[in-house]
């Protein structure tokens, strides 16, 4: 017996929306029957209400002319989110799933427009957890000005996934004239970041709780398309942008050095780090350059635009701690070198595997 609420209309006829009345999600909610419809109605349609999603067809139907008015190329991306724990200081998996995909569109110079939301749920997940995550996704999407227009749910047996996995794909439109590329860095260019590095990685490791450390580090999870818009309006000649997620700053810099066949020199004393993150890394023997971020971009701009770019980043709330951290050089193409705080120099390479704490 589910209570019925009229919320949406299909073909002009009222449609009744189901309610989930049990506390945990079971395989029945993935079975294609009434339980699944109740789950979709109560958890997802309840929060992602919009005119594109409402007809509940198997695909979202998007107006081409609306999009071509914004730019001349379509950007299309997908990302899966499997974070553990699902909730952490500064966000949860739902916020990540919206911000991450919005950012993947935005760093290509695209205006993010539409997202999909596909969830894989492990049986036994509390319904309230799913509801909380879906609500966060809806609120984040609304604030970011993007619409979740299509989706899917699957429920798998216990052990087949870890509580909840989310995939979001995203579509956006790239403005005319914007042409960013990882292979476009040139010697003399300047490298900037929009703020403190490593917060997300440290927050997640800390939230897993097995370090017995208590630090107030919060994830930096945020959507960056408005910050990027500010930067691109001020410096249309920006060469390249990338969000420094898994693998951190070091990985993005190596990708640039390799693709553009340039050298990169960064300066440890100009790399913005929170003292809590520094301390966290000291204790565990981790290198903050490799810690993940969820709200940080690496920007490559021509030297004459460096000050304008820095000012543009700093003018946005998400870029207050922006800094020029390095230069593109013609020295040792393909290599990233860091001048250490101590005055020495060392190579900053790609990480071989996962960063593991050292024993002593």
């Amino acid at each position, binding site marked *: 017996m589910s209570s019925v609420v009229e919320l949406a209309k299909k073909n002009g006829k009222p449609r009744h929306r189901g309610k989930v009345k049990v506390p945990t999600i079971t395989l029945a909610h993935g079975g294609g029957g009434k339980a699944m419809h109740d789950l979709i109605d109560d958890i997802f349609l309840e929060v992602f209400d919009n005119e594109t999603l409402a007809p509940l067809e198997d695909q979202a139907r998007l107006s081409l002319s609306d999009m071509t008015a914004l730019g001349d190329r379509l950007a299309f991306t997908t990302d899966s989110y499997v974070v553990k724990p699902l909730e952490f200081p500064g966000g949860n998996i739902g916020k990540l799933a919206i911000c991450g995909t919005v950012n993947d569109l935005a760093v290509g110079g695209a205006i993010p427009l539409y997202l999909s939301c596909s969830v894989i749920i492990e049986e036994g997940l509390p319904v309230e957890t799913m509801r909380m995550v879906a609500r966060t996704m809806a609120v984040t999407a609304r604030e970011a000005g993007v619409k979740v227009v299509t989706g899917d749910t699957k429920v798998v047996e216990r052990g087949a996934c870890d509580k909840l996995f989310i995939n979001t794909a995203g579509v956006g439109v790239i403005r005319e004239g914007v042409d960013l590329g990882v292979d476009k860095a040139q010697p003399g260019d300047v490298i900037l970041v929009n703020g403190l590095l490593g917060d997300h990685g440290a927050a997640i490791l800390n939230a897993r709780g*097995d*370090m*017995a450390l208590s630090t107030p580090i919060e994830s930096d999870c945020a959507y960056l398309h408005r910050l990027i818009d500010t930067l691109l309006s001020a410096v249309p000649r920006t060469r390249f942008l990338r969000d420094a997620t898994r693998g951190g700053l070091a990985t993005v810099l190596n990708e640039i050095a390799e693709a553009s066949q340039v050298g990169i020199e960064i300066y440890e004393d100009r790399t913005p780090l929170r*003292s809590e993150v*520094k*301390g966290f890394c*000291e204790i*565990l023997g981790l290198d903050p350059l490799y810690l993940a971020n969820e709200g940080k971009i690496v920007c490559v701009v021509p030297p004459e635009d460096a000050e304008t770019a820095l000012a543009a980043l700093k003018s946005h709330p998400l870029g207050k701690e922006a800094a020029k951290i390095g230069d593109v050089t013609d020295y*040792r193409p393909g*290599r990233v*070198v860091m*001048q*250490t*705080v*101590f*005055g*020495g*120099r*060392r*190579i900053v*390479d790609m990480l*071989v*595997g996962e960063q*593991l*704490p*050292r*024993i*002593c």
Partner: protein
Amino acid sequence: MKYVDEFRDPEKARFLLEEIRVLVPQIRNGRTSTSPIYIMEVCGGHTHAIFRYGVEGMLPEGIELIHGPGCPVCVLPMGRVDDCVALAHMPGMIFTTFGDAMRVPGSKESLLQAKANGADVRMVYSPLDALQIAKANPDRPVTFFALGFETTMPSTALTVLRAKKEGIKNFSLFCNHITIIPTIKAILDSPDLHLDGFLGPGHVSMVIGNSSYRFIAEYYKKPLVIAGFEPLDILHGILMVLKQIAEGRSEIENQYKRVVPEGGNTVALDAIGKVFELREFFEWRGLGSIDHSGVRIRDEYAEFDAERRFSVPALKIADPKSCQCGEVLKGVIKPWDCKVFGRDCTPETPLGALMVSSEGACAAYYQYGDVEKIHDTRAMVKEVA
């Protein structure tokens, strides 16, 4: 960061480097040999810091650092890793380990691969965490992979003492603790040695104190300076070794006085003495078998000894013939002179001990490397590939 940044001050480094720059040619002018001054840092923690801060590149010509055997993860022989993997695959077993031992290759699997293949391998930050897991899972055997020098030995010993006191029956250790002194002696006894002095390990000395090193100064006539792990500590330690050489002294000196007491830590030493005894010999990757260089659990605590409780294969797996780790460790060749460095032996697919952990000399060179030297080697490697 307070109490950390002070030890990374580039201004103070300049003063130390100026003194080093004066001393190095002075010492070399007084010698008949034209070879550089070779100083070995024994400890992997030093090696890591030297590369992390680019200390090596700041030193003047005529002085070279030899990166010693003090990375416990690196010197672990492949057969012991195979034993870990076999233990981890035993029915019901929860196998616990420090993080950086996860990737060390065995002959078939690393612990990371064993975990992917279904073994319950869990990363812990202290042996007490492993004991906690044992208490939480009383129906399952829990083994802790104990490794490291005297630095990590006290915490393992105290964990065994606590397990005994609390009567915990499902907890055991796979003991791979090693001890540094016999290994330094083995290096000093090797005929192809080129060493003028040592930087002594800071953390180990915090436990064992200074007196155990005396034979190095008195019998082998080599200076040793116990040094801390910040880059200024390391430069200061190097300067102190150079001063001893210049003045014709060979003494045991302590640069790391803020942490290392002369007599060591007696509480820690007592715990070690209660739980562990020396093994007759222990196998080291890259160096072979060294007498009295490892410890095992005493009979009184046999119930906590995984080697006695379970049957482990205990096979000896020889290092690949092409590896020249031993020669690198003794300073006979540099990492990039090894035939397989960067070709068959890389951090992704390490053949030799020194490529295994970031504290190993070869991995450190490969990843952080001397910007000038490494590039040429790696460019060459790429061309060959």
